[in-house]
């Protein structure tokens, strides 16, 4: 059983579409996909439509539409709303985005098995969702702490799955995948000039150690060097184009690996 784990990472998630494109060019289909945050968006769209081109079309069109609407919000992590509110963006503001992507589609309608990972605020553990409405699961997986308002699944508030499972390989293994392919980004540790930024830098280091641990069970890894902030969705086309170049460079290696 071939499992594909897609890393969390905002706009960087457009790189995963290049991974899926290479799967298609090699005539290989993942039996199961896991994803956190942006990884869950791409994974869910692929599991629903079965085509990397359609995934790119839907995801990029929806992003463009929402970029037009959303013009006045300042940069996350530099906003005084963080001091008083639960998040910069309320549920109402970003729910529409996911509704547009998935409508009322359910996991039961998917062509490929999908595991969406969120973070359970009560237990401080990753929470795997593989049933119900896609919109609810993916939305829960994408609630970047401090930026998006937490949502509820099974009566519990959830945050971004990338907190503890940025590349959900262990979840695939637990489900029975015996060949694990991961699609990830080169780590970028942000610089710091303030104590707050130092905390975020240390947090990014922690994430890189979690990713390292998750990749220890991956058999093949697509690694994308994306030098773009996770929230810079205006650069989604550039991210995808660059990822295609990187993915095609390792296509032969991947094909040899998967056919062995």
């Amino acid at each position: 059983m071939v499992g594909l784990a897609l890393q969390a990472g905002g706009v960087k998630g457009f790189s995963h579409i290049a991974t899926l494109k290479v799967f298609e060019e090699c005539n290989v289909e993942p039996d199961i996909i896991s994803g956190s945050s942006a990884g869950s968006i791409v994974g869910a769209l692929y599991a629903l439509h079965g085509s990397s081109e359609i995934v790119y079309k839907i995801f990029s069109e929806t992003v463009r539409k929402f970029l037009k609407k959303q013009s006045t919000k300042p940069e996350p992590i530099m906003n005084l709303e963080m001091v008083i509110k639960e998040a910069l963006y309320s549920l109402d503001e970003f729910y529409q985005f996911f509704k547009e992507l998935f409508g009322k589609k359910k996991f039961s309608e998917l062509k490929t098995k999908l595991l969406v990972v969120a973070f359970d605020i009560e237990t401080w553990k990753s929470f795997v969702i593989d049933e119900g409405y896609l919109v609810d699961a993916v939305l829960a997986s994408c609630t970047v702490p401090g930026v998006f308002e937490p949502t509820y699944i099974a009566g519990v508030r959830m945050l971004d799955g990338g907190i503890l499972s940025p590349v959900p390989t262990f979840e695939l293994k637990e489900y029975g995948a015996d060949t694990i392919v991961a699609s990830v980004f080169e780590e970028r540790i942000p610089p710091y000039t303030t104590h707050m930024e130092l905390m975020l830098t240390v947090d990014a280091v922690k994430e890189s150690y979690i990713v390292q641990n998750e990749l220890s069970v991956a058999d093949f890894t697509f690694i994308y060097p994306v030098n773009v902030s996770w929230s810079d969705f205006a650069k989604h086309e550039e991210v995808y184009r660059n990822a295609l170049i990187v993915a095609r460079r390792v296509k032969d290696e991947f094909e040899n690996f998967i056919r062995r």
Partner: protein
Amino acid sequence: MNLKISLGGDILHYLGAVGLLNALSENKVTERDDLEIHCSGFSCIPLILWTYQRNNAYNILSSMWDEASKFFKGSFKPSLSEIGKNFLLLYKMQKRIDLELSKQKLSEFVEKWIPNVEIEEQSRIKIHAFNLEKRQDEILYGNAREVLIHALPYPIDFAPVDGYISSSWVFGIPEGDGIIYIDWYDPFEPRRATDFLLMATFARTASFIKLATEKAKVTVTIRLSGSGFKDFRSISNRFYLAGKEFLEKFH
């Protein structure tokens, strides 16, 4: 068989680890040639004092406690909601990193309390610090004061010293056969955006602690609760009992 004991060190209360060392010493464990004691953050202080000034380590730590609780104020009230308040303050102030000031303050503190001794590479005490530039955990040797100012800084109150911060604020605890740590992560209801950020980063450290304790043969957890944990005597006594518990479980 090697025996590798590891201690956490993310809060000031680890000064009480001198109690643990006394318990190990009573049972001759500290005389074993194959013993290594790994520490990070605040647990490095009692370990250095106990190793180089064993006879008066307890008295020095006891005298240090009040001053240290003011000096390391962000780590003295170990509760997520208290740290959340500091975190919020950092966000509001956008307080800039002052590398020199941090180093100077820490140097003054360690010069007052820590002996001017050398920690040899073959020493059984292993002081961990996290090198942010290389993004790796390192064991430091050399002058004990120099080593400590690299092992102590934690993000809320201090800037990194030469790129080093307390390992305990990244990994929680070094790996070991035996782990002794304080579990102070209290129930926390996040309300503000900064609270969610805080929760996320501590959840990551908690996951590293879980990995380390799963690998360890024996783990002793000290639950931090009640007012008794505000005075040094109670804390070191709690560590002493933890040492006894550790020995019972290990044998």
